[in-house]
């Protein structure tokens, strides 16, 4: 297992380097002069030729592309992603708190999504074809197909304005988590619970289930056994849910004014704050690679055959 972990982890390194290069190159492919982008991002009312030259020199933008990339990459290893074009503050000082805020929202949501997906998936599989199964699937289909922006607005209107139970937005207290978490859970649990349900159903028709039943094993024990086996398929999907949600909270964060990565990225894109955008893309790519590796490791731990195949 130790060898597998090492090999699997080493494979992630070249992948990350390729991603970092593409990120840096894409931002530099923009047809606009980077110095001009900086000045416009800072809100300078009028960009003159002299100002452009001064800014270029100050930011070292007159150096060759590969040297700039190499400098940026080596500084990234020290968790230094340069300074924001807009505020001039270190990117990490902006990205760090925003990342933590989004991570908090993501983790609470992932737990809720897991609980609902597994709970409803098992329930529906056990009730296959019956009214409860059909009702839950129908409701989840309805809820999943609703745009999250609309759902969020409706929830704020009902629970915050009409009932006055919750704040409309912001990140002031634990109550602020409830509505965004519900919206994220509704959006994702509807997808993931189908996966749990179908993989539970496939276990239901396996020979070992029939055998266990024939032996008179308790129904709850059979269910647990099926759940453990079906989880193998779901593990990779659930592991990937973390970076997916981490990277797709933009709409929910904007509506609930959640000071996270989504809000920061939208502002950075609008302001063309390239150092922040680069760091964000890299951060997200790293989390995708990390969680992908993690899901491979968990699956390998669950099924020794996978370790040999690698």
């Amino acid at each position, binding site marked *: 297992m130790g060898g597998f972990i090492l090999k699997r982890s080493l494979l992630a390194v070249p992948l990350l380097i390729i991603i970092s290069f593409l990120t840096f190159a894409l931002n530099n492919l923009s047809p606009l002069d980077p110095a*001009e982008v900086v000045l416009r991002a800072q809100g300078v009312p009028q960009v003159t030729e002299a100002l452009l030259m001064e800014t270029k020199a100050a930011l070292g933008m007159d150096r060759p592309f590969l040297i700039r990339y190499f400098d940026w990459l080596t500084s990234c290893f020290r968790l230094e992603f340069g300074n924001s074009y807009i*505020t001039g503050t270190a990117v990490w000082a902006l990205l760090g708190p925003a990342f933590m805020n989004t991570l908090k929202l993501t983790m609470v949501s992932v737990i809720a999504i897991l609980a609902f997906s597994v709970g409803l998936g098992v329930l529906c599989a056990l009730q296959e074809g019956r009214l409860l199964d059909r009702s839950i699937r129908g409701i989840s289909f309805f809820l999943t197909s609703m745009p999250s922006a609309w759902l969020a607005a409706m929830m704020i209107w009902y629970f915050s304005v009409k009932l006055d139970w919750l704040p409309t937005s912001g990140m002031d207290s634990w109550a602020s988590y409830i509505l965004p978490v519900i919206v994220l859970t509704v959006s994702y649990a509807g997808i993931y619970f189908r996966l749990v349900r179908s993989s539970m159903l496939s276990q239901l028709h396996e020979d070992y289930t029939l055998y266990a039943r024939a032996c008179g094993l308790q129904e709850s024990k059979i269910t647990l056994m099926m759940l453990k086996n079906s989880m193998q398929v779901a593990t990779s999907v659930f592991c990937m849910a973390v970076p997916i949600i981490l990277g797709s909270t933009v709409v929910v964060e904007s509506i609930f004014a959640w000071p996270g990565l989504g809000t920061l990225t939208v502002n950075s894109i609008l302001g063309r704050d390239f150092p922040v955008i680069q760091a964000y893309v890299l951060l997200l790519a790293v989390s995708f690679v990390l969680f992908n590796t993690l899901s491979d490791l968990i699956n390998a731990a669950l099924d020794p055959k996978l370790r040999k195949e690698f």
Partner: protein
Amino acid sequence: MKRKLITLLAAVTALALLAGCGKAENGQTAASSPKQELVYATVKDINDMNPHLYPGSMPAQGMVYESLVENTPEGIKPLLAESWTISEDGTVYTFQLRQGVVFHDGEPFNAEAVKQNIDAVQHNAVKHSWIKLSTKIVDTKAVDEYTFQMTLSEPYYPALLELSMTRPYVFLSPKNFIHGETKDGVNGYNGTGPYRLIEHQTDQYAIFEANPDYWNGAPKIKQITAKVLPTGETTYLALQKGEVNFVFTDDRGTDSIDTEAMDRLIAAGDYQVVRSEPMNTKVIVANSSKAGSPAQEKAVREAIWHAIDRESIARQIFSGKETPAETLFSANVNYADIGLKTRAYDLEAAAQLLDDAGWNVSDGGTRTKDDKPLSMELYYDAASISQKTQAELIQNTVKGLGMELKLIGEDSSSIANRRAAGTYDLLFNQTWGLAYDPQSTVSAFTSESSYYHATSGIAQAEQLYDKINRVMATTTEDQRKSLYTDILTIVHDEAVFIPVTNGNLTIVAPSGLQGIGFKQTQFELPFENMFFE
């Protein structure tokens, strides 16, 4: 039985989750909003509040920092300077400063502080070159504790106006300077203004507290919170709930909430809407110097002017929030009320102008001259829905005249690049705004990075530039009036800036709030004058 139990448990959990939430902390309704406190919604964070740089929110900076003089509808009035004299040759400005003023951190405001601030701005002169005064200050001196003197290289009449702007010539406590400078950042935001920044959570909120030691008396509104709300839907709901009770047009002239939402709020009785006079003019800029472009011809530019239905644009596209504009500057702009002849929405007049200029309708319906079709490109800001809609409406109208407009949406930086490089026929733009007009917009007529390409192709370009240079150095009001009349008449006659609508500032405020007013700028509000009944 077990299944029923599971269902019941799920239902109970869901209910408990919702019922257990309790009341929100800010759960007051608009009707019972706390007195002497305003919470305004802002799309963006207040950002870096360094008053000598540009990323910060101007409404927020306007609360914290002050300038030497103030621009009012009646002209320049004292603020941190009680009085001033200008030498006869118009180059030496001597200010008598207000005594007893202190910065928020207790540092005294005096001539030395003024000198340090202005010097700090000048040390970053390249960045401030848009404000012409920065290119003309050659010397600053603290004559005595409360006398400050500034020497210019040549007379420059808008000097006091530019000193009155929200930035950069405003004053920060010298204790907040880093190594005597502000160009690379500051370590605090202590101004002399009516409010002081006491708390800032990036991308969440910023709290400003009334300055109890304010030289003009502590403001009645004791606390102002800028709450970051990126989407209009949430802002509207937060206004309904009372978590936010004040909204105003942002720096870019975008309303945070739409007109229908405003109407609903007013109908409920909790809010009022107050609109300012015109603050700026939205225009279509025609490139008079682009070789081969029909926009080089005055008749074509005039025809487009006649073909714009400003009434419909103001009423339908802007839902009455903007008003039709007939000239580059509205009459409330200094020196602009000169009775220029307007060009009404008149398609027949437009067709006649094109006929007379030799643009004849061909078989395909498009006008041609010397086998060249009457076709131009109109650039608009892709992020602005209203510009796109206006462009489509105008495209449709001029099509009936036999003129083809190709609409191209680009981001605002690309459009600024096109304006500087002259690679456009027509593009959407707007004037600098009330405090900056006419002088900044007029200065930009000569600037390579601004409107030079729009103005350099007209017959009287040299005369125009000469008059612009002269007006900035005038020392008497009569000279100034006469020169501005000539300048504005030339660009009006040449139809290089085709006006569309006048934008204004809108405030949505609690119905009990009094003293709501505007400054001579679209970028800040006089919060210190507001109070609840």
